[in-house]
């Protein structure tokens, strides 16, 4: 090539970098052990080197973080006039609550789960996590780097080998206030042959910015059902990046239901490292107009690395786009050389209910082994006219018929939720959204 130097992303609003740099340098990290300070420094320099990714970055092609680049978010200390947190969900055995990124003991109840599962706030165990912390996480990514630099709290869950935890653990992340920035950091380890069901709920009030990072280690033979309900305020920006490792004969079963945020990105990077490992990445997003009258953006970006032979993955995402809603799905499946006998199936479907809606889909297969069965499918469309007509010819009014069809469209993927109570709760949440938004 004549000249291979890459174009510099000079269009990044550079003012944002010093804002976070000074935020970082003003924090007192003196109590952190050396290794942790090094991790934070590395994260900060990764962010400082790039700033928030621009749409020129292929991975962020469709999701524009320009509103973050203004740099007017300020990380906050906990506030007492917090967003009102209701009681623990009926299906939950135990609960941890984080308000504006910080654990709130008086709102939490983790005693029920004591014993074979260790549930603690990250803040307290951080300094002892040297060999464990961040080993799955790619701190070189700017948003992840920023989290590594500024993270203070989150959950840390460790399930003992062979422990099957029946009760469901509920994690509530509530944010409030104007222009607050929070950086939750979560760490989860399921010991060999263990099983756990965990639900994260993200709620809030205000135009905050949350940028969370999680690492999940599902060891050999373990099963982890990880559910996520993202119901952030429709003026908020909600970024989340989970890094998942799946061991031999292990299962990582993820379902994400998203209705909130002005701009949300749920990114999951998984590596299946043991034979017999299986992955479910499932979800639904229902979006419409954001608080500012522009469209909500909901971005689901997944990466599945079939690193070894005899591993399988299944991926289904369904989107309902109303108003000026903007859906993004980017899903990449990588099958490495010699990773034979792979099955990877991916499906992305979007339903466009409004002529102002927009969807961008990029499913990607990168395959270096021959004994594989991989597929992806993507569809975009509005409601099936024939189906609508059929229902109406049976006497069902148009709005009702429409609602029924939309509900069944989302219902197909909600059905995949393994846990019945959660399936019901998520279905109800989706139905409520439909009643409030799409029916009318």
């Amino acid at each position, binding site marked *: 090539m004549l000249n291979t130097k890459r174009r510099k992303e000079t269009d990044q609003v550079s003012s944002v970098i010093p804002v976070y740099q000074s935020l970082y340098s003003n924090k007192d990290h003196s109590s952190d052990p050396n290794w942790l300070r090094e991790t934070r420094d590395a994260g900060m320099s990764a962010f400082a080197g790039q700033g928030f990714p621009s749409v020129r970055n292929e991975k962020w092609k469709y999701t524009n973080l320009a509103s973050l680049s203004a740099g007017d978010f300020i990380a906050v200390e906990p506030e007492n006039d917090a967003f009102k947190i209701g009681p623990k969900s009926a299906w939950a055995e135990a609960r941890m609550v984080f308000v504006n990124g910080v654990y709130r003991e008086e709102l939490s109840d983790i005693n029920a789960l004591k014993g074979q599962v260790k549930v603690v706030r990250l803040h307290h165990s951080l300094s002892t996590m040297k060999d464990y912390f961040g080993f799955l996480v790619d701190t070189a990514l700017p948003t992840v780097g920023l989290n590594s630099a500024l993270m203070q709290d989150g959950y840390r869950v460790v399930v003992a080998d062979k422990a099957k935890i029946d009760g469901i653990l509920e994690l509530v992340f509530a944010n409030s206030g104007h222009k607050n920035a929070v950086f939750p950091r979560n760490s989860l380890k399921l010991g060999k042959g263990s099983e756990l069901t965990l639900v994260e709920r993200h709620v809030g009030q205000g135009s905050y910015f949350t940028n969370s990072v999680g690492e999940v280690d599902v060891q050999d033979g373990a099963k982890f059902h990880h559910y996520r309900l993202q119901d952030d305020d429709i003026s908020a920006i909600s970024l989340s990046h989970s890094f998942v490792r799946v061991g031999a004969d292990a299962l990582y079963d993820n379902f994400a239901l998203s209705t909130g945020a002005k701009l949300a990105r749920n990114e999951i990077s998984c590596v299946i490292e043991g034979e017999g490992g299986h992955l479910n990445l499932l979800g639904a997003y229902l979006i419409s107009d954001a608080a500012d009258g522009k469209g909500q953006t909901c971005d689901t970006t997944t990466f599945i690395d079939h690193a070894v032979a005899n591993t399988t993955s299944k991926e289904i995402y369904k989107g309902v786009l109303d108003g000026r809603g903007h859906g993004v799905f980017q899903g990449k499946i990588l099958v490495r050389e*010699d990773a*034979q006998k792979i099955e990877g199936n991916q499906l992305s479907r979007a339903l466009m209910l409004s002529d102002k809606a927009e*969807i961008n889909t990029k499913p990607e297969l990168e395959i*270096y082994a*021959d004994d594989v069965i991989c597929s992806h499918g993507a*569809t*975009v469309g509005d409601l099936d006219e024939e189906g609508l007509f059929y229902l109406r010819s049976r006497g069902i009014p148009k709005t009702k018929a429409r609602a029924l069809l939309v509900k069944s469209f989302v219902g197909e993927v909600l059905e995949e939720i393994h846990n019945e109570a959660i399936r019901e709760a998520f279905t109800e949440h989706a139905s409520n959204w439909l009643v409030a938004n799409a029916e009318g």
Partner: protein
Amino acid sequence: MAATVDTVERVESITADKYKYGFVTDIEMESAPIGLSEDIVRFISAKKEEPQWMLDWRLTAYRHWLTMEEPNWAKIGYEPIDYQQTYFFAAPKQKVAPKSLDEVDPELLRTYEKLGIPLKEQEMLAGVVGVAVDAVFDSVSVATTFRAKLEEAGVIFMPISEAIQKHPDLVKKYMGSVVPTTDNYFAALNCAVFTDGSFVYVPKGVHCPMELSTYFRINAQNTGQFERTLIIADDDAYVSYLEGCTAPMRDENQLHAAVVELVLHENAEIKYSTVQNWYPGDEEGKGGIYNFVTKRAKCAGANSKVSWTQVETGSAVTWKYPSCILQGDNSQGEFYSIAITNNMQQADTGTKMIHIGKNTRSRIISKGISAGKAQNTYRGLVKALPRASNARNFTQCDSLLIGDKCGAHTVPYIEISNSTARIEHEATTSKVSEDQLFYCRQRGIPEEEALALIVNGFCKEVLQELPMEFAVEAQKLVAISLEGSVG
């Protein structure tokens, strides 16, 4: 179809040599000095005795090219191209331009005969074979057959260099109207240094009476080929156009950067078929053509229809995305592709379907086959703009892997801004099934033939889109391209 029935016979007749087009024609050539500069651009333009406006257009493109960078987003890797070590113009020496085939150097006619394109015979078999050929040898067109017959019908089919002289208004109006000089790195380069290519104009209401075809041949060493094709189908016109490409076996890489522009007015239809069989390099990846091509069709008129069919078996590196701009209401775009990579070949190919008008429809059928240590990527974009109500797209992308050292990749982009658009995309990747191979072998069919049969079956949806003569050729190519990939 009958062509499929014939496969077996044809496959059997395949000669043992893997790339039978690898010979060199010994003919006296004249070249521009090596390298690239404004002077070279001027040299080419002068050589072609071009009008000033054409030279200005070239220079604008060249100056813009200097500000651009070679794209690096495709999944291909190759040695840097040294533009200063490439000849941008090479042509067989001839004293005066040949007026008829009788004046063409017999050595050239023999070359095309060896390539299976007997220019003379075809002229004689007028009405029987029914294919008019423009033969492009390195930088220039050496012969165009059937011109008189086409002229009767009002169809203009001539080398583009000649069209610049004879039909400047048409060329001025349309050249660059689909792929502008600033479009992309390789297109800009082509605009600056293109040497020849074919020009077709089919007037209103004319159904072109025969298939048109251009046969591209790179012969000279260290020479890039930069041809440019422009086809205009006026209202209610129809034309089917075929192109074929070959090159000698050489150890060093050679650059081919072409631009093809298709313009379709109301109710017009163009069927464009390619069998690309440039020299792919040897088993270790030495030599072969770098094939960087920009092909784009603009369905400007309502109800127009364009269909791209390509069989890509050659080249060391292929970078090519024949695209459709569906601007006219109810216009249709189709892309049928077979891309086969073996040994060290790399292909990054696909299409773009840009839905702008209402009720526009597109269909993409892509079959990628990867063997040896090759990498084969489908990259495509389906975009529906807000005005494209009721746009429809169907995409089927299948990849087949043969052997465990190759790669098959699928990168589709789907960008939809209209709620009434309906898009369906399906992609699969799998290997040739052991069960299928065994079934064939149990019936007495040897492994390589069995593989060719199965792969041809896998590609059938695309093969059947090709004109008959090409379909047979393509099926043979499928078999040859995969030689040595099993066992």
